[in-house]
């Protein structure tokens, strides 16, 4: 369908002209792959570094004569130390509970709100839509201090509920904004004819519109899950005991202590903690990108 302009054969006036075109094309390729290599190196090097440090014995790190860019000795000790001597598995579990809970709550609320704002006509609808968009722009840094007071006055401090209920403040605005756009793209006639056939509004929504909005719902879900998994500030403040910490906070605040850093285990924790979100989006990278950009284009 698309004809790349560069591929259209141009009648070469002479041999030297043809050579010039070829040389130009070669130069273009070289620049393209050069830039790509540089970007790849810069963006992926920290991950490579996490990996090689996590499989080296810590004593090798301090040996300045060894080239630090590849492992000279291999070990799994850092991983076994992390999994058996620290609360890492517990933090992983905490994070899973919180991320699943917050995502479920936010997804239900966002589907409802997105449907109401994108589909139904009612007074104050536009104002509410704008309000939710503005809520999306409020950074957690602005709220965490008074929110910590609210959490403790509701007696939610150091419980999963503290995070399951506070993460939706940034998940719902994003989710409903994203889903609003999806619901609008589904033709109204489908619901109207269902209602003529006797379906209630609720049935028209759940049986007709929601199945069609599945791609949007999935990307809202993945986005919510990764945002919850990665959250740091609220978790740092609302969870006070070691046992209740989430993975990012536990790793940063419990494994970095004093002057002795267990770099190998730290990097192992950083790698393992990144795996779930990496898997989550590698399966759904297209929906993820669509969600990311739909969210920003519609904004």
């Amino acid at each position: 369908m698309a004809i790349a302009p560069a591929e259209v054969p141009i009648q070469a006036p002479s041999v030297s002209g043809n050579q010039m075109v070829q040389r130009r094309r070669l130069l273009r390729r070289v620049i393209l792959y050069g830039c790509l290599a540089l970007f790849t190196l810069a963006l992926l090097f920290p991950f490579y570094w996490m990996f090689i440090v996590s499989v080296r014995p810590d004593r090798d790190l301090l040996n300045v004569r060894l080239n630090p860019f590849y492992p000279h000795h291999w070990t799994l000790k850092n991983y076994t130390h992390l999994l058996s001597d620290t609360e890492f598995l517990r933090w992983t579990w905490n994070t899973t509970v919180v991320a699943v809970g917050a995502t479920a709550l936010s997804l239900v609320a966002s589907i409802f709100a997105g449907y109401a704002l994108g589909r139904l006509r009612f007074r104050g609808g536009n104002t509410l839509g704008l309000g939710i968009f503005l809520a999306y722009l409020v950074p957690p840094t602005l709220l965490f201090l008074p929110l910590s007071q609210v959490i403790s006055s509701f007696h939610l401090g150091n419980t999963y509920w503290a995070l399951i209920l506070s993460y939706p403040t940034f998940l719902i605005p994003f989710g409903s904004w994203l889903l609003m756009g999806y619901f609008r793209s589904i033709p109204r006639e489908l619901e109207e004819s269902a209602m003529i056939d006797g379906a209630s509004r609720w049935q028209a929504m759940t049986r007709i519109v929601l199945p069609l909005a599945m791609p949007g719902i999935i990307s809202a879900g993945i986005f919510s899950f990764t945002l919850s998994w990665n959250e740091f500030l609220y978790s740092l403040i609302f969870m006070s005991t070691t046992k209740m910490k989430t993975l990012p906070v536990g790793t940063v605040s419990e494994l970095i202590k004093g002057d002795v850093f267990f770099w190998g285990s730290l990097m192992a924790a950083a790698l393992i903690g990144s795996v779930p979100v990496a898997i989550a989006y590698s399966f759904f990278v297209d929906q993820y990108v669509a969600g990311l950009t739909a969210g920003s284009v519609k904004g």
Partner: protein
Amino acid sequence: MDSAQRPVQRPTLPLKQRGVGSRFQASLQSESAFARMLLVPTLVVLALFMLYPFALGVWLSFTNAVVGHSGHWIGLKNFENLLHDKIFRTTVRNTFTYTGVTIVLKLALGMGLALVMNQPFRFRKGFRALLLLPFIVPTALSAIAWLMLFDSSLSPITWAAQHLHLVNNRINWLGTPRLAMTSLIIANTWRGIPFFAISILAGLQTVPTDLYEAASIDGAGSIQRFIYVTLPAIRAVTLVVMLFSIITTFADFQLIYVLTKGGPFNSTQVFGTLTYQRGLSATNIGEGAAIALYMLPILAIISGALLWYIRRED
């Protein structure tokens, strides 16, 4: 989209099969009643965990509250004191430097990466997925990698620079004021490039190819094609991405918390870390609330200006 064209089986629902709560159901047949019901969960959550804390924050900022004591009304005293506070002034300056420099770098490099990714080459999809990684993984965890990359004795960057005879001594990345800010800017830019690149790439892919052909036939060079064809097409998406990035960078906390905690000598202190330090560590909640609230007018002006600019040509 294609899903809309799929034939949908009309469900045949028995009208008489309504039992308990049928009156409630009937009331929901009104469009506005149904809409209001659907909005209840969202409004409850946002009211309790966003509006209420926000109002409480405003109230606290006018008091001398400390942790455990509600304190009393002191008017604008917190806000006034901060204006004369040297550390607060440094904080404001740092936050603007951090945000300003990283936005320019992220925009330039992100657009560069998007233009590269828009060219046809092998394994493009795989690359797109891989290069999104810095944006996707938990920032606190990737910050740990940076903590080591900037370590004064273990940094491989320093090791490489020494072996290339670029420097003789160790580089104290996070322990020297100016270098500490530079290090944070590098780490933040690294994390943000993919977000810019992927979003701009999506914008680039909406440009019809024949537009480029038409421009070429009219004699436009590649720079002119970029200015007159490419830029208008990605203008909206780029501005929106900038809006989000400015807000999150201005209000950043975790990267700085992990790498420098605002030090050395407050040289990397930003609004987020100072609020945390004064409001929680030093338990002066009133003062902390005032610091956080100082962000509001700044963010409102920047967002308002950008949103106005985005809408102007839509």
